[in-house]
């Protein structure tokens, strides 16, 4: 069937027979159909399970991060209408000021992430405080009328949902929303009727089911993006509802992306004085990202790893484009998909136990794939010749070696993380941060090349050699903690060594005290002196300074730094030096950037300016940016347009001999 018509723009095609398959199946089929390399199904499955795991993990992290904020909000809302709960008669006089309790929630500029926060917020509120939560967005509310309509729609719907749980036959509440005039009075009437009903219900049921909510829960209205609401709408709403605050316990939550000052610049004093604002600050997105990186990338449990360039691309997109953690995670997902799609050996990218099993079932083709890996080749070359032959010819031997290598890789990762953290403890407190403030920068540096060969590392070691004692001691203690908590078994010795350093420092402290006393007594002796002697002593002093003997503390400090250095050299080898790293590392950054941070403008420009990039025809090959007259017409037209920019006389164009 053709999709070209002069009277229609949409064409629907339905499969002739209604074959409805499960989505998963089609997805895996689609990978299987075209991809001729091995184990596609298994790869797809492991990809899916890995992603599910990571998704769960990120959600958990997000939840933990927001927990504090949500708890604060909940307690605020509880407090806000406690008077209302008590139903005291003086209640109205207490609330004389007619202030609406308002939570200003500063969320930061990463607007796309807010949805998650609001979702969890409204869930928590509905669980703990009140069933009446309305989420409003600026684009739905161009006027006060729309706002009320939306608000009432959401409130009444949610109330109906709850009613349906308890009474099935109760239909009189379900007044269609169109029939009610959307006004505050009708809202209040609704609230009263609902309250009466729940009252009767609770008395009947003796408060067993809805005991979590109070008797008259507040109505919470959340303005998701406060900045984009029109001022008039907000003002009207606030003024109107402040008049009815006695009858309707309303609480507002403003989602703010910029700064809390915006409330005062949006609302005049007369309106903002009707609000009783309390400020809540959510975690900044950068901290959020750090936590994600910390918990996701710098752990041993996740078998999939990001290469240095890929990580840099993702971080750059985050820092330079959107500050969105969600997008970062999306990028991470894409990395996983790409890796499992393009690397046939990614089938081994799973838990070590599974991976070992899978190694045993590898087909001959896959073994060949392993042999083709550059890192494996390097490994083979470093072996003795008998081993080389065995590795290249015998599949079973190869599998054995592969298992061992995978184990090594796993071990490397475990050690890597601990040592990296340890190094970070040192570098993050140095002045000017030669190796970066964040652990992700250090991670990138370590992945990129041998970190101990870089200038930055050199300078940070220099700086570390000048640390004072108290800093050094605290750092060492932190390192001990890191190593103790790490899962690697090799670190027992390291811990011991570090502890030894610590005790030495303590001893030093006692010694230093004594030394001080002796030096001062010595000086006391040379009190009388003439010019000649003074000169002599000064010269001596100078000489001695040149070949100055180090104090014990300095020696110890050197020792500590050298020890850390040796740890780094041992454990922070860049990943691409490890054999079989291709199995778990995804490193094609260009693909990722092309898909996430595309430059359509550049693509067009290149295509028009230099068609040879795409059309590999020798005739189009040109040097120095000029365009040959053989180029496609559109390229020549573009060149002309570039030159004059504005109007081109068509007649001249057609007559000029192109």
């Amino acid at each position, binding site marked *: 069937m053709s*999709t*070209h018509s002069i009277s229609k*723009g*949409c*064409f*629907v*095609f*339905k*499969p002739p027979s209604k074959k409805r398959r*499960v*989505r998963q199946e*089609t*997805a895996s089929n*689609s*990978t299987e159909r*075209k*991809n001729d390399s091995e184990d596609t199904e298994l790869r797809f499955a492991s990809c899916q399970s890995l*992603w599910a795991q990571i998704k769960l993990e990120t959600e958990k992290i997000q939840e933990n991060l927001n927990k504090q904020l949500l708890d604060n909000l909940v307690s605020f809302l509880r407090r806000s209408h406690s008077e209302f709960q008590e139903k005291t008669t003086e209640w109205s006089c207490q609330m004389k000021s007619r202030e609406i309790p308002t939570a200003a929630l500063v969320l930061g500029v990463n607007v*796309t992430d807010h*949805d998650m926060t609001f979702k969890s917020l409204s869930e928590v509120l509905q669980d703990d405080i009140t069933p009446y939560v309305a989420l409003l967005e600026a684009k739905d509310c161009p006027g006060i009328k729309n706002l009320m309509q939306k608000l009432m729609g959401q409130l009444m719907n949610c109330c109906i949902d709850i009613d349906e749980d308890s009474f099935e036959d109760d239909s009189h509440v379900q007044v269609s929303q169109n029939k009610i005039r959307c006004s505050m009075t009708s809202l209040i009437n609704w609230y009263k009727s609902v309250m009466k009903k729940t009252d009767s219900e609770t008395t009947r049921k003796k408060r067993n089911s809805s005991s979590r909510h109070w008797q008259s829960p507040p109505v919470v209205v959340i303005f998701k993006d406060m900045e984009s609401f029109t001022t008039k709408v907000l003002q009207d709403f606030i003024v109107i509802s402040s008049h009815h605050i006695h009858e309707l316990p309303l609480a507002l939550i403003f989602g703010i992306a910029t700064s809390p000052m915006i409330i005062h610049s949006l609302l005049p004093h007369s309106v903002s004085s009707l609000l009783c604002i309390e400020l809540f600050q959510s975690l900044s997105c950068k901290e959020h990202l750090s936590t994600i990186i910390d918990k996701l990338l710098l752990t041993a449990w996740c078998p999939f790893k990001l290469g240095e*360039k890929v990580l*840099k*691309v993702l971080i*750059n997109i985050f820092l330079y484009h959107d500050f969105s953690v969600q997008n970062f995670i999306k990028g991470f*997902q*894409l990395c996983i998909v790409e890796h499992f*799609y393009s690397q046939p050996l990614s089938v081994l990218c799973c838990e070590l136990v599974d991976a070992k099993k899978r190694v045993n079932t590898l087909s001959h083709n896959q073994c060949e794939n392993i042999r083709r890996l550059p890192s494996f080749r390097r490994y083979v070359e470093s072996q003795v010749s008998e081993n080389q032959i065995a590795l290249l010819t015998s599949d079973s031997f190869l599998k054995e070696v592969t298992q061992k290598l995978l184990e090594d890789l796993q071990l490397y990762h475990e050690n890597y993380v601990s040592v990296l953290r340890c190094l970070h403890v040192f570098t993050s407190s140095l002045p000017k941060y030669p190796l970066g403030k964040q652990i992700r920068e250090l991670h990138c540096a370590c992945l990129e090349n041998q970190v101990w060969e870089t200038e930055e590392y050199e300078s940070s070691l220099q700086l570390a050699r000048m640390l004072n004692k108290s800093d050094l001691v605290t750092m060492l203690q932190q390192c001990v903690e890191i190593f103790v908590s790490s899962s690697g078994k090799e670190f027992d010795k390291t811990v011991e060594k570090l502890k030894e350093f610590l005790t030495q420092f303590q001893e030093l402290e006692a010694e230093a005290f004594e030394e001080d006393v002796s030096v001062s007594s010595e000086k006391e002796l040379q009190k009388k002196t003439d010019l000649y002697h003074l000169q002599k002593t000064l010269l001596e002093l100078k000489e001695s300074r040149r070949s100055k003997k180090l104090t014990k503390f300095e020696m110890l400090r050197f020792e500590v730094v050298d020890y850390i250095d040796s740890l780094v050299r041992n454990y922070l080898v860049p990943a691409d030096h490890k054999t079989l790293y291709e199995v778990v590392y995804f490193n094609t*950054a260009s693909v990722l*950037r092309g*898909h996430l941070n*595309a*430059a*359509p*403008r550049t693509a067009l420009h290149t*295509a*028009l300016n230099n068609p040879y990039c*795409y*059309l*590999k*025809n020798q005739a*189009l090959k040109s040097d120095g*940016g000029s365009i040959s*007259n053989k180029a*496609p017409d*559109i390229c020549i037209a573009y060149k*002309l347009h*570039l*030159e*004059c*920019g*504005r*109007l081109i*006389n*068509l*007649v*001249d*164009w057609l*007559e*000029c*001999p192109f």
Partner: protein
Amino acid sequence: MSQPEGKVSGALEVKFVPDEAVLSHIADDAGIKVRKDKAQLAVSVKRFAKKLENISDDEAQEILAEENYVAALGTCAQDPVGNGSGVSGGEVYSFQTPKCSSKMAELASELAQTPGQSVAADHFKCPEKTAKTPQSSKRSGSNKVQQRSKKKEFLSTTPYRLRKRLAAPDSCLESESEYSASCSEEDDEEDQKEVSTVLSGQKTPAKATAAATSPPRNALAKKIKEEKMSSLVEEYFEAHSSSKVLTSNRTLQKLQTRRLNQKTLHDLLKKAPLAYAAEMKKLSQQHESLFSKWMLQLHLGFNIILYGLGSKRDLLEKFRTSVLQDSAHLVVNGYFPSITVRSILNSITEEVLDHIGSFRSPLGQLEFIHKRFKEDASLELYVLIHNLDSQMLRGERSQQILAQLSSLPGVYLIASIDHINAPLMWDQAKLRLYNWLWYETTTFNPYVEETSYENSLLGQQSGSLALSSLTHVLRSLTLNARGIFRLLARYQLENKDNTSYPGLSFQDFYQQCREAFLVNSDLTLRAQLTEFRDHKLIRTKRGADGVEYLFIPVDDSTLTDFLEKEDEDV
């Protein structure tokens, strides 16, 4: 400077002179020659000097800026990106780089001097031509500068410059175009060749004019050191502030060649062979190998967007026919002139979900779709949108709805964009909903289907259609009615030069009709006008004073044709 070179042009050796070298040459020499040429100092001396400096300075800064940008982005320079997307920003986002302007001019003049395109291949066999290359490049350099300086008549473009050269021996050209008019229309290319051969014959006078303009310019470079950065900005706005854009006043209408009608044009274009077909095929094969990957990624919750030069319609069609045969899918031609989000949603609800009934608002409709997809997890729909950035779909609201639609778990969207600024349609929130994966699919295919709803400038405008329908409708009317219409048409033609002509007011019209004995009461006239309006022959609009003005929404040439025809008939 080009003067002496021009004289000895025959003896000059062949060498390529890059643009920058020319510039620096001008700048250096100027210092020495200044004293001789002092008398010739023009008023615009300073301006020119500044300009020269600015140009070279600008380039250096541009490079610097590029480096900064690249460094900031970190990864840009590091990895080799396949399709040359490593092109730095400065190159893409510059206004009119001096580089390309002169190069194009150079090329143009080169071609102008080359008899026919085929000769360009044996470039070096033609000593006369190559000997002139350095000279022509210099001339173009000077032209460029003057073009931007005060002389407004140079404001136009290469074609204009070319034309200026063409225009010198005008008589020749006139005869040429007459010749092409008399010639059969099919061999356009031959005509062009002829023109260019004539041109190559004329290059001597052209050279002379160019040489004549150059001497004062040598002196202009004197004050090079008084360069100010701000002057470039001033220049820019000066050049762009003049509302009147000068192009040559030759128009297609004046062209003697009769314009082809739509159909013959189509046929002719169809016959023209597609250049580089083999390479383009290779490109599209490359893209087609991605189909399975697309499917996988669509199923994993991403949506796919295609960009790059060339029509992506065929690619998407191929995707549809090869992969989507067994599943429900919706194809949306975004370039269709009257496509709306409404119609897209309607076809989903009515044809995919088999729902009968209408919705009050698109949002409600979207909610319904959302609900249905939520209820039935096995429901899935592929949506293919050609040109998501088309005129009708690029609005904020429609994009919002499409974004929400695409974020439904069972809906897989794959779309193409072509506009260079298309990504500006989306803010962060929409991007999040769309969840795009970008794919560069440069195809170089002509946009045949996409532009099929537009009229070609080369063909006759839809005038023939309008004319035939005019006569057709008019023929079915009474004699008086035709008279009324003719009256209005004549009046409109009389006022065609008056740009503020609002139309003929009803009262005046009535008066005139009465005088011509065409109507006897204003009721009959009104009845008649209603009939015209129903056939869309006339349109009315209310002026500022509340008076009703009538006019015929047909362009003047068609109207003239119509009146001529009518007069013949009568």
